[in-house]
């Protein structure tokens, strides 16, 4: 495959006894082999490393959780209810079981839940954006940035989001909800199990207050 050619340039090279040779190696088999290897690597490996989301769940210790739940100020709390078929409801503060309009329906798009959370968490979002701009201008190091963001997110007056999912909600819904927490710079959020009261709120909303009217009648 490698071929040695007599150079044609040595026309007047009578004096030198050595002939000039050009050495050419045929690289075609080498290319073939490399292509095969590339094909192998492309098929058997994955380029993208999976991303992850870190979450820490509350400890199962009953005393601690109850204490912490009490600490959440009703005005700062916002509860998300994730339901089947990508439905999403939320209420602010304490649930009002009598008035079905206290539960609001929204969705996972930017105009839905994100605008609600951004409005609630306006100060923190603004601060985080400022910090980010500073970091981009290299005024802050990565570590300082992280520390300050954590401080802003953990500030006292930021809202607390309680995420409750029904059994019919999907894993993607949960991830979407957690995602919104990150986008809206919400530092305090918790995933808890749905209660009967919350299920009632959803049912009542779907029936446009028929259930609470029934309950009121029953009591009266």
């Amino acid at each position, binding site marked *: 495959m490698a071929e040695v050619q007599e150079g044609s340039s040595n026309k007047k090279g009578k004096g030198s006894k050595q002939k000039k040779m050009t050495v050419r190696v045929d690289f075609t088999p080498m290319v073939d082999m*490399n292509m095969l290897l590339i094909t192998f690597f492309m098929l058997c490996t994955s380029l993208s490393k999976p991303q992850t989301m*870190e979450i820490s769940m509350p400890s199962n210790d009953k005393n601690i959780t109850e204490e912490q739940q009490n600490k959440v100020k009703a005005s700062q709390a916002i509860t998300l209810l994730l339901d089947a078929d990508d439905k999403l409801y939320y209420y602010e503060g304490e649930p009002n079981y009598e008035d079905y309009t206290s539960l609001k329906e929204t969705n996972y798009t930017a105009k839905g839940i994100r605008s609600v959370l951004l409005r609630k968490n306006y100060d923190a979002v603004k601060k985080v954006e400022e910090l980010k701009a500073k970091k981009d201008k290299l005024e802050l190091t990565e570590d300082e940035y992280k520390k300050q963001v954590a401080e802003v997110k953990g500030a006292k007056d930021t809202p607390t989001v309680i995420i409750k999912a029904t*059994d019919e909600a*999907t*894993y993607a819904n949960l991830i979407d909800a957690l995602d919104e927490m990150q986008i809206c710079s919400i530092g305090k959020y918790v995933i808890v199990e749905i209660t009967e009261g919350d299920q009632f709120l959803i049912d009542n909303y779907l029936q446009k207050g028929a259930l609470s009217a029934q309950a009121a009648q029953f009591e009266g």
Partner: protein
Amino acid sequence: MGRPKIAKKSTFIDMTAMSDVTVLLLTFFMLTSTFVKKEPVQVVTPASVSEIKIPETNILQILVDPSGKIFLSLDKQQDMIQTLTKVGEAYGVTFSDAELNEFKKAQTFGVPIKSMKQFLALPGEERDKILKDYGIPCDSADNQFKVWISSARATNRDLRIAIKADQSTPYSVIKNVMNSLQDLKENRYNLITSLKSVSDE
């Protein structure tokens, strides 16, 4: 009329440049990509904006398929052997060296401990085929999943738990897994997602 003379030209193409390109490409692929793990079920992870990369070592991956079957994978073979021995002890099953050897070759495992012995006796290809029909039981009646996790934790203290679940998995299944982890005081773990950018729709 003589024919026009066609000069004989050699058809030799210089492949050196081509070779350079392919070697570069090859190097790129070798350096950036990771080998695909063999998983018994196809799982589509949901997308998130989170940009944290998963660490490469000391990962205990919990694979959850849409129907709620649970599989585990550990990245160190030594850990796998010790974990299986510990789980076996908890359920009164002892494994021979040959069986342990077979077990450590598996990339993902998830068989009820009672059927583990007969599962390991099967030839490799057969095992891959039927693994997807099993899954580690994780309900209140028989929560072997908890035993697996606590054994793995006892084997390697630096393990990080990562949950990889299909996006259409019902929340009830995830809740089950999360509650089991919570019972074991494993309160920090990772959720594996794929990347997407913040959309403004």
